[in-house]
């Protein structure tokens, strides 16, 4: 980084070109490694297809996910007697198409996962960078507060707060973010502290760069990969958390389709119609599994220090 920085001073234009080229080269290298790691690649493809399905939900889903049709209630999936291709994965207790509800439910899951990780990652990294760079009182207070938040198991904390503020998408995001920034805070703070002692930072300081510039232009690019890995793995975690809360009736409220509440509403029909609960759970499992595969693959490629054998 030091070398690059000095070059940049001497002639801005050429460096911009080579910097872009460098990033493109890195990205190509990264893609190559990703395709080499078969499981991570598979995970990436599945996650991508889930995202595409969620984006184009309205044109893909065969039925209206909210429209009930009592005549068609509890129809089994097509491969079981009594089912038909009209409702490929069957219908639920008030005759809504399960496939369509899964497609729309995926929207909620992915949105909650991405938005939560986006907001809490941004806030956590920002605060963690400042705390790790400046230390002092600010760092002390935030670190104590984060210790305190970490002394609650997450789900209990979320259940507790959701029970006070009441269910809903916006509340859910706020409550999840309220605690999840801590993980990003701790990671970026620790990385910031260890990076700050390195030579390239000293060089930048000697050249009189502003603290903000050192933090976000010099150090952040060197630690962003661990933050990205954490972020990817957290997306899967939040998707499960959202499903758990919706399962308890504290997350997304019906009739909006969410996988957790679909699994819950099917519980009453477990004896006769197993598909109502089981199939949304399989969708959830596949998505979270793929995200975890991708996350672990990313970790192996970007951050080999953390690699499990």
């Amino acid at each position, binding site marked *: 980084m030091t070398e690059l920085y000095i070059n940049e001073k001497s002639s801005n234009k050429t460096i911009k070109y080579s910097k872009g080229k460098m990033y493109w080269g890195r990205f190509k290298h990264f893609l190559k490694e990703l395709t080499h790691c078969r499981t991570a690649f598979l995970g990436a493809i599945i996650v991508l297809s889930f995202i595409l399905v969620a984006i184009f939900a309205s044109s893909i889903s065969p039925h209206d996910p909210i429209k009930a049709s009592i005549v068609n209630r509890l129809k089994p999936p097509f491969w079981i007697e009594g089912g038909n291709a009209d409702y490929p994965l069957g219908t639920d207790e008030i005759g809504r198409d399960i496939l369509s509800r899964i497609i729309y439910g995926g929207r909620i899951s992915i949105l909650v996962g991405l938005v939560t990780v986006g907001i809490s990652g941004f806030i956590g990294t920002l605060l963690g960078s400042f705390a790790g760079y400046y230390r002092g009182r600010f760092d002390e207070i935030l670190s104590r507060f984060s210790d305190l938040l970490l002394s609650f198991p997450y789900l209990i904390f979320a259940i507790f707060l959701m029970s006070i*503020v009441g269910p809903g998408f916006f509340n859910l995001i706020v409550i999840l973010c309220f605690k999840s920034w801590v993980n990003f805070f701790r990671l970026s703070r620790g990385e910031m502290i260890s990076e700050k002692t390195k030579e390239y930072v000293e060089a930048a300081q000697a050249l009189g760069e502003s603290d903000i510039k050192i933090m976000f232009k010099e150090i952040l690019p060197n630690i962003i990969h661990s933050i990205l890995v954490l972020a990817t793995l957290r997306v899967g975690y939040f998707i499960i958390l959202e499903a758990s809360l919706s399962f308890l009736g504290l997350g997304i409220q019906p009739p909006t389709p969410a996988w957790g509440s679909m699994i819950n509403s099917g519980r009453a029909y477990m004896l006769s119609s197993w598909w109502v609960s089981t199939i949304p759970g399989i969708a959830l499992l596949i998505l979270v599994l793929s995200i975890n595969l991708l996350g672990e693959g990313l970790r192996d490629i970007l951050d080999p220090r953390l690699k499990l054998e």
Partner: protein
Amino acid sequence: MKGIKILERILIVIPTMLAIAMLVFVLMRVMPGDPVDKMMGESGNVSIEEIQSLKKEFNLDLPLFEQLKIFVTGIFHGDLGTSFQERRPVWNIIMEKLPATIELALGAFIFSLIIAVPIGVISAVKQNSLIDRLGMAFSFLGISAPAFWLGIILIIIFAVNLNVLPVYGRSMFASTPVHITGLYVLDSILSRNWLALKDSFLHLILPSISLGAAQASVITRILRSSMLEVLRADYVTLARTKGLSEYIVITKHALRNALIPTVTVIGLQIGTLLGGNMIIETIFGWPGLGRLVVTSIFNRDFPVIQGSVMFYALIYVTANLIVDILYTYLNPRTTL
């Protein structure tokens, strides 16, 4: 020196719990919505006098600081307030439900060890074998599968289709053992009630598996990777060259050291176990702390929710404390 460090670590629990109590208190008050309004809002037809008397009964008419004082001094006396719904001390309600939760957590914990330790060790010893690959695949699945969904699948398979295991509650009405510790399996052994033992054990199986599966997966992975590391260490090679049998080398020399990082992970997993139990207890109708919280949420019984959350935090903090202390004994090099 070690004794002092441990004492210090124990003493930190007090300010931590106090801070948690304050946080819980402040959050309950800062969040939008008045508890009495919420409790009454759904029933409708309440006069202002009734609301006033309710507020008085639960000290909600006092200034915030006074309320905090009552709340904190109460905690030191084991007084967590009075339940809105049942009109009796929250502490008593929690104490009634606690044994069920402990029994389920122990069940899940034992299940996860029974699964994780052999698979973790074998996967490491026979790296890249079929067992290793299958074990890793299943542990990955176990991490990604939500516990509540797993519970439902187990119910559908074992209770609905095969009809071999019970799925609701802790025991059948007729075979509840005499109350000694509150742990049904233990109680029925102590009172030599073998019918109750069989019954309560069968009731424990499915909830324990659903709750313990994720933990088993995590422990398997950590144990495998630390075993792999340890097996390459010099002292293991030395033990082999001394001519010790492979079994002794693995169990006595390698496993003991590989358990050190595993213990830390188990400590971190206690939170998952506690959080998961709310959902698993709800699915299996298990009359424990988790189900108490969930039903209290629907009854808007705020003192119970507040008290249980405090209690959960206490268990979590204490469990982590125990793990920390255990860790120093397992690994003499560490200081707290």
